[in-house]
């Protein structure tokens, strides 16, 4: 179980305090499939990074399976079974796809067959990629799918994906949806997916709508979808004016 209690995150920019996340409290039971959505800049990535330990909250506490992880580092959280697929994954000169998969799997040798399976699950033809370096020669969509494959290779209880659909072609996207569906059916890990994609949102047990650093709404998709539609138009007065012209 993942639990956030009164988590806030503020930064100081040009002497001004800026609130990025504002008193977020949240409980996610095990083996759920949760999608976080909401407008750009709403605080979704920041929330995910706070869970993974990439960002330290200004106040509040985080618990994972009963352990207070608020002051644990990234490595320790990873070892406890939290994984995070970056929205914009870095590239590595000199590390091959296979190397990343093996590191993800716990720094053990993986048979080629196993590497291939992870890659296939994100729609990559394994033979073309296993031995390629994860450097600038790969396209954005390729790097993104390799990132997702590394998260699949981790044997962890909480998988966080940050916009897994971004930059991915239609064919790979369908493959990815199948992969998420099958993970969902097995019901043995918790999935926390940040997404703007209707097909991913519709897989969710529950949707969290994050905007302006707060959890605006939480509920099943039938309930949240209409709210999203309403929010997108009313959020900005300039857009409203435009809509009425």
């Amino acid at each position: 179980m993942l639990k956030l209690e009164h988590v806030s995150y503020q930064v100081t920019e040009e002497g001004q305090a800026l609130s990025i996340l504002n008193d977020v409290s949240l409980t996610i039971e095990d083996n759920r499939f949760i999608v976080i959505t909401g407008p750009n800049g709403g605080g979704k990535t920041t929330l995910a990074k706070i869970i993974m330990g990439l960002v330290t909250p200004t106040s509040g506490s985080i618990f994972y399976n009963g352990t207070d992880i608020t002051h644990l580092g990234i490595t320790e959280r990873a070892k406890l079974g939290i994984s995070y697929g970056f929205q914009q994954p870095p590239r590595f000169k000199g590390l091959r796809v296979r190397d990343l998969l093996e590191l993800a799997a716990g720094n053990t040798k993986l048979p080629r067959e196993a590497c291939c399976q992870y890659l296939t699950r994100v729609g990559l033809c394994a033979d073309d990629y296993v031995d390629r370096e994860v450097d600038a020669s790969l396209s954005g969509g390729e790097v993104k799918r390799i990132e997702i494959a590394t998260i699949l290779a981790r044997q962890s209880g909480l998988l966080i994906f940050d916009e897994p659909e971004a930059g991915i072609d239609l064919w790979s996207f369908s493959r990815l949806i199948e992969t998420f569906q099958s993970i969902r059916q097995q019901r043995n890990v918790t999935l926390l997916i940040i997404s703007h994609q209707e097909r991913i949102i519709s897989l969710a047990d529950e949707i969290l709508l994050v905007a302006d650093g707060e959890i605006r709404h939480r509920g099943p998709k039938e309930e949240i979808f209409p709210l999203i539609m309403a929010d997108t138009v009313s959020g900005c007065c300039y857009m409203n004016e435009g809509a009425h012209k």
Partner: protein
Amino acid sequence: MNQIDETLLAQIADLHGTPEGAYNIRKDSALAGRSNTKNITIETKADQSGIDIHIRPDTKYEVVHIPVIITQSGIEELVYNDFFIGENCDVSIIAGCGIHNDGHNRSQHDGIHTFHIGKNSHVRYSEKHYGQGNGGGEKIMNPQTILYLEEGASVQLDTVQIRGVDSTKRYTKVVVAKNGEAILTERLLTHGNQTAVSEMDVFLDGEGASARIISRSVAQDHSEQTFYPRMIGNAPSFGHVQCDSILMGDAKIRSIPAITANHTDAQLIHEAAIGRIAGDQITKLMTLGLTAEEAEERILSGFLK
């Protein structure tokens, strides 16, 4: 052969015991072992320090080991090794120098290797430099590698210096003839107060000649590195220079490349980058369960692989 000798040989040449095939082992400025084969003859030079290596035409898949080790503090030597490789050969030459210096005097090996590679021959040449020992004495290596390729000849040159060498000045010159190819890979890691300078001149002299320089280096602590990769296209040819460096601590790296086209059909490309390890690379690996130190190490070892 003692423990230190064995460690050095393992480090520089992956050698465990006596190599198979042709070899020449030089230890503390003297001959410590030699073997010739039907096709490969190694002879001590008459007029100066060093050896001549003759490889008969059509020699295929043979390996020559010519390691040099220095275990006594205070040895300074200048050695000439000349290779004469016939036509249609396919051979590997494994050189390297290991210095163990427990004393206070400087140990220095300057090796000048000249290769004459015959028509349509393919040569892989690897050279590893390694230093160890806890004395205050400096470990210095100044290698020069000069390669003349005849028509259709190709060479793959791999040089590696990972830790332990206080000062190095390296010069590499390659002349590539018609349809020849040269691939030069250089990997270097300096630390402490070490300095390294690497100069390369690659001449693309014949039609269809091609060359690549791939340089990867890591400079740590207060070490300094300077690179002068130069590619000169004198014919319809293709050349690519690619230099990547990682800076750490208070290290300094300078890269001064030059590509010169003396022919309108010479196509030359240069790419270079110097920078720190990106923070998101470290954090990414940490999210896979590595500590920050392990992540850094993994990134460096991949980079220099």
